[in-house]
């Protein structure tokens, strides 16, 4: 009650009604002159902070101290700083958001690199650079950019995947001479590229002569061999071109190719990027599967995305009838290359090879829906062939062929594979032979067989045996590697 009364009163009381407690209170009293009762100033009702004025409503401080102590003004500059910070943070969030897409790809690339998935790493870095370029092109300003750091990572991945000479070519297009000279890796890549260029220039005349038919291959080979002396630093490429002329134009065969590769491996033992893949093909073709597997393992160790090495290992397992081993390899390959069509096709081949044709057909249907892949369609055609459903087999193979032809005419030459040609030819011949054709397919089969006239000369033994009736598609495609080639 006392407190309420006190609070309803003015801060100061007349001098006459106040005890002479201290000099400070007397100063205030002089300003007031009223007859109303004033509570005397005591130590208890004085401001605890300044001690000069009486306490304000429900407070321990006077009105002045309340204002300065509890409601101290926030500086205008602080408000401005806070508003600027808030506005800039909006810009920062926008920049952060814009940078997230390439950053995500770079992080994925780094992770892939750690796991030796060099293919994934390469595509991740390449994608990061692409995303930046695309966005900058859209807004017309270099807002985001993949710096030299990412370009360097991309070049390193190129070196692992395609060889240091390819990386050297990329480095020279991205970095200037000073930057290349300062970086040890870049300068070594650039050096490899120069070696490749010099070797290519040296042998260009002979290689082109063989390709154009204006030079005798044996003569060209002899001339290239002469270049070996005095060009020791170019030897890798000179031997490679010798092997190319000898194998392609002189029909030297796989053994000769192996001898050339052995020589390269002996002279340049670090050039695994060069000879591993060659050894895999050579040893597989020679039927030396243990050695082939050894090089497959070495290549997989360098790059987990190496589908070619996995495919060879799976083929060897299938040839040896090791189903569970082949399945484990396909699963491992699919783990590192989940969206690769060749790996999916390998799974289908494996199922068919070990007699699970219906499962292979179901898998094909499922995969085709998601990927629309030509190779999956080709495998489905072979599945139908095994089931002796020749009309469906031809229909599917012909669709795959038409799609591939469209891709081919748009410049994607890889779409038209020798396996696809072989499959279309086999399906067309079998469909005609078994008279399974309807009016619907009659003209299509006719046009295919016309365009494939004389193909039997280059067809595989397996295909010819099926056509000749020496074996059935069922038998031929459920043994060996489970495919026609």
């Amino acid at each position, binding site marked *: 009650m006392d407190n309420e009364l006190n609070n309803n009163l003015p801060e100061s009381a007349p001098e006459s009604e106040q005890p002479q407690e201290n000099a400070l209170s007397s100063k205030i009293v002089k300003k007031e002159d009223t007859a109303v009762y004033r509570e005397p100033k005591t130590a208890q009702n004085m401001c605890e*902070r300044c001690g000069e004025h009486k306490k304000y409503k429900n407070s321990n401080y006077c009105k002045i101290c309340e204002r300065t*102590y*509890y409601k101290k003004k*926030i500086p205008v500059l*602080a408000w401005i700083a806070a508003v600027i910070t808030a506005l800039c943070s909006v810009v920062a*969030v926008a920049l*952060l958001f814009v940078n997230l897409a390439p*950053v995500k790809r770079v992080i994925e690339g780094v992770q892939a690199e750690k796991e030796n998935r060099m293919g994934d790493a390469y595509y991740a870095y390449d994608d990061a650079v692409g995303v930046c370029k695309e966005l900058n092109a859209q807004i017309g300003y270099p*807002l985001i950019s993949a710096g*030299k750091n990412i370009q360097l990572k991309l070049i390193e991945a190129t070196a692992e995947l395609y060889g240091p000479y390819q990386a050297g070519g990329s480095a020279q297009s991205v970095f200037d001479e000073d930057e290349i000279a300062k970086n040890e890796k870049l300068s070594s890549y650039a050096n490899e590229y120069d070696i490749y260029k010099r070797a290519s220039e040296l042998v260009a005349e002979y290689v082109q002569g063989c390709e154009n038919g204006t030079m005798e291959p044996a003569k060209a080979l002899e001339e290239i061999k002469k270049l070996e002396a005095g060009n020791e630093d170019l030897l890798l490429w000179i031997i490679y071109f010798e092997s190319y002329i000898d194998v392609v134009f002189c029909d030297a065969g796989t053994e000769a190719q192996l001898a050339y590769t052995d020589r390269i491996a002996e002279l340049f033992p670090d050039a695994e990027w060069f000879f591993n893949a060659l050894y895999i093909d050579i040893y597989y073709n020679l039927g030396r599967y243990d050695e082939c597997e050894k090089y497959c393992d070495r290549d997989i160790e360098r790059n987990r995305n190496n589908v070619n090495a996995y495919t060879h290992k799976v083929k060897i397992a299938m040839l040896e009838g090791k189903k569970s081993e082949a399945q484990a390899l396909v699963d491992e390959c699919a783990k590192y290359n989940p969206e690769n069509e060749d790996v999916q096709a390998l799974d289908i081949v494996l199922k068919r090879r070990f007699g699970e044709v219906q499962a292979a057909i179901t898998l094909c249907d499922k995969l085709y829906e998601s990927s629309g892949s030509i190779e999956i369609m080709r495998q489905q055609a072979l599945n139908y062939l095994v089931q002796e459903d020749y009309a469906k087999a031809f229909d599917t193979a012909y669709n795959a062929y038409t799609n591939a032809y469209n891709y081919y005419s748009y410049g994607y030459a890889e779409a038209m594979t020798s396996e696809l040609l072989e499959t279309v030819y086999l399906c067309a011949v079998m469909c005609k032979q078994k008279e399974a054709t309807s009016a619907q397919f009659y003209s299509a089969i006719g046009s295919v067989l016309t365009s494939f006239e004389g193909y039997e000369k280059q067809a595989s033994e397996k295909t010819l045996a099926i056509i000749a009736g020496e074996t059935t598609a069922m038998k031929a495609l459920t043994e060996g590697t489970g495919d026609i080639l």
Partner: protein
Amino acid sequence: MTALYIISKYLTFPGAYLRCFWEQIMCRICGCGIESDGYMRFDEACGHVDHDFPKGKAKAVCVAMIPGIMNFIFGAIFALSGILPLFILGVDFSASKVMFCIYCVSLYVGISMLCNIFPLIDDALLCWERVMSPGKGSGIISKILLFIPSAVMIAGAYIEKYCISFVIWAAAVAAAFVIL
């Protein structure tokens, strides 16, 4: 040590100044009296607002934590928008001069804010005492929930007092620029 502390606060003045702003706002909301004039003073409370002890547990927690949380949120946004392009995408001066400068400024502002997220030791200890003391609103759940943040605040307050956070950030940025 005080001189070093003041130097670190001035080197990270955007964050220190903004922290004072959040602190003053929280003091106003929680009814704490403010003694000091100016934010960037040449004493041990540089970069902080000299305020009365808040009454009650919730107010003590708010005054000690919320300014730091605000600085952390803004600091993280600015720092990340600088770190990602500079250190992960490797943007350099040759790529885009304007953007490189913007990223550097953003990184500096962000780190300056992250260097000023902890309260003064007195405030941190008061918060701990209020959280851990028995009494109204000091239930076991609130103690469990606030135990770690309060402990982190005390540790952070000491780290900031001896400029360790500033040294760590400065070293990390320098190392990142050199290595990446």
